């Protein structure tokens, strides 16, 4: 395996770093008035060219826009331009009660919504001081659902990554398998995405009848399909040629840039929060943390493929050990009364009404909680002022931080490889822009 040739010493001397720090106004000035036909883009010093990629581009995963400085076909510096999907969700979160909060955060990382709900609920529970009292069944259900969500998220990556690289039929296959997983999530939560299922205090509903058979059918269906992926992609000389040695990053760079998740693990750093700082019952689970060697695009692909297999292992263990019991805490402060009680008790009706209109008060304090989402460390920083709404709700989206690695991975590569590199980071723009 050899890396792509570097753009040459003269260029490296002339360039400082890989991040293009040029405002949109300056870029527009370089390229004419920005209105109508401005002619071919003029270059900074007649040797390089600045072009724009996205936000409407099939391979930029939503609305990511890149400003690329090119010399011929070689990428020199890059600036990711984000914010096209910004809807002020952190501000909105300050206006919703803790019970409404999951409906908001679930829309951030829309490929892995249950993780957002999980981290928000765990942070709220820690502020309430009930994090040790959550019933075991609720925690095991959370593990089951988030691991299945990790599988569906990685399957989505398989689909989009395949399409970006040119294995277009992969798009259909990945989507097909993901849909099967989403079907189960829909059966449990009522929705394919944006579930609002994991809530402070537990989960919204118990698992439906026949859930075990459904999960077993899923777990039986996926591994043969993964072997098909191996035939279609992993072992293919074209696929390997396209990915190996492209977008290389070292462990030092990844750590300095704050990268987490598969991006960090591809550089050989075995850091997975499920193993290193376990939450829920992950310390009882038997699974492997998949790491790469070269930190290239192929490693990031292969890690996600193998993480699906590891998640399947975890789900089998969860199936074996799912305990009976409550699926939410029986703390009257947090949990509304059962539906049946509302018909016979005025107090229960009032209680139900108050919880859903006023919410519950949370003691003052601040807390940071993180879980391992399919994209890396998903953190939630909550500040409470003692009222029923968070004073500050901050979500540390792994995609947002991981995007910073793009310029470093793309530097010196071909513009055709830029697409492969973007895809390998697997950014979800809902989480980047929030």
């Amino acid at each position, binding site marked *: 395996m050899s890396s792509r040739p570097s753009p040459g010493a003269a260029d490296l001397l002339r360039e400082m770093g890989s991040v293009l720090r040029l405002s949109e106004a300056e870029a527009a000035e370089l390229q004419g008035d920005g209105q109508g036909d401005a002619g071919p883009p003029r270059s900074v010093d007649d040797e390089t060219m600045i072009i724009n990629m996205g936000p409407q581009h099939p391979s930029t995963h939503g609305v990511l826009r890149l400003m690329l400085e090119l010399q011929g076909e070689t990428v020199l510096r890059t600036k990711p331009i984000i914010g096209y999907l910004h809807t002020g969700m952190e501000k909105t979160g300050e206006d919703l009660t803790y019970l409404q909060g999951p409906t908001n955060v679930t829309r951030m990382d829309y490929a892995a919504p249950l993780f957002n709900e999980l981290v928000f609920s765990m942070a709220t529970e820690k502020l309430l001081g009930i994090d040790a009292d959550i019933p075991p069944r609720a925690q095991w259900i959370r593990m089951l659902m988030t691991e299945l969500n990790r599988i569906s998220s990685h399957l989505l990556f398989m689909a989009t990554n395949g399409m970006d690289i040119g294995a277009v039929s992969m798009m259909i296959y990945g989507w097909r398998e993901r849909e099967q997983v989403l079907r189960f999530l829909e059966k449990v939560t009522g929705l394919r995405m944006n579930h609002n299922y994991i809530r402070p205090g537990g989960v919204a509903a118990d698992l439906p009848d026949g859930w075990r058979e459904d999960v077993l059918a899923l777990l039986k269906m996926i591994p043969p399909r993964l072997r098909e992926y191996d035939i279609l992609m992993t072992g293919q000389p074209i696929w390997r040629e396209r990915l190996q040695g492209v977008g290389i990053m070292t462990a030092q760079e990844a750590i300095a840039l704050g990268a987490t998740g598969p991006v960090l693990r591809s550089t050989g750093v075995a850091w997975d929060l499920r193993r*290193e700082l376990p939450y829920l019952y992950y310390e009882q689970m038997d699974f492997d943390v998949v790491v790469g060697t070269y930190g290239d695009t192929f490693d990031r692909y292969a890690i996600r493929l193998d993480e699906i297999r590891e998640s399947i292992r975890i789900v089998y263990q969860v199936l074996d050990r799912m305990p009976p019991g409550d699926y939410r805490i029986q703390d009257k402060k947090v949990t509304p009364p059962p539906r049946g009680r509302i018909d016979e008790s005025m107090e229960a009706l009032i209680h139900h009404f108050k919880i859903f209109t006023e919410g519950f008060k949370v003691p003052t304090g601040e807390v940071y909680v993180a879980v391992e989402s399919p994209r890396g460390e998903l953190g939630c920083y909550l500040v409470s002022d003692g009222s029923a709404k968070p004073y500050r709700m901050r979500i540390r989206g792994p995609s947002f931080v991981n995007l910073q690695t793009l310029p470093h991975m793309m530097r010196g590569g071909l513009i055709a490889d830029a697409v492969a590199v973007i895809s390998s980071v697997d950014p979800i723009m809902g989480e980047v822009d929030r």
Partner: protein
Amino acid sequence: MSVADDAGKAPAPGDETAPATPEARRYGVPATRSRDDEVLHPGRDQLAELVRTLRDDEGYAMCLDVTAVDYLAHPARPPLPPGIAPERFEVVVVLLSHVARRRLRLRVQVSEADPVVPSLFDVHPGTEALEREVFDMFGIRFDGHPDLTRILMPEDWIGHPLRKDYAVGKIPVQFKGVTNAR
């Protein structure tokens, strides 16, 4: 700044309602506990040097998060150790040590009159986008940042949305045939 000398005086784990003792110091700065998390309270001028020392000598190799809180509407805020004067803004930095498997949180008080904090870019380049976001959302400037521009809002936006004196926007919904549009 001495680092190891007072490491043994780490505050005992406990809830933060217990008053912070004056001698609760760690890495040379006042320290508290918040729900079992370790929190340091460096001054604004100590921040960059402290983060560098933590990275080089204590293994906190990664900066996970830089964010801020505007305490305009909640001046009481989560408790501060004695000797730390509350200010309107607070910059919150989350560090991670892979070796010790521990996170560390820094809370830095930033005044409204002079909302400037030294940038951590030279220590952790990964804070570039995070500091841009804090600048965008709170108007806190980071001294020494290579490209302190808006990141999520448009370049010509006026105001800093996550400040507490910035109202939540509402767009009136027009329904057909309704006279009293709200």
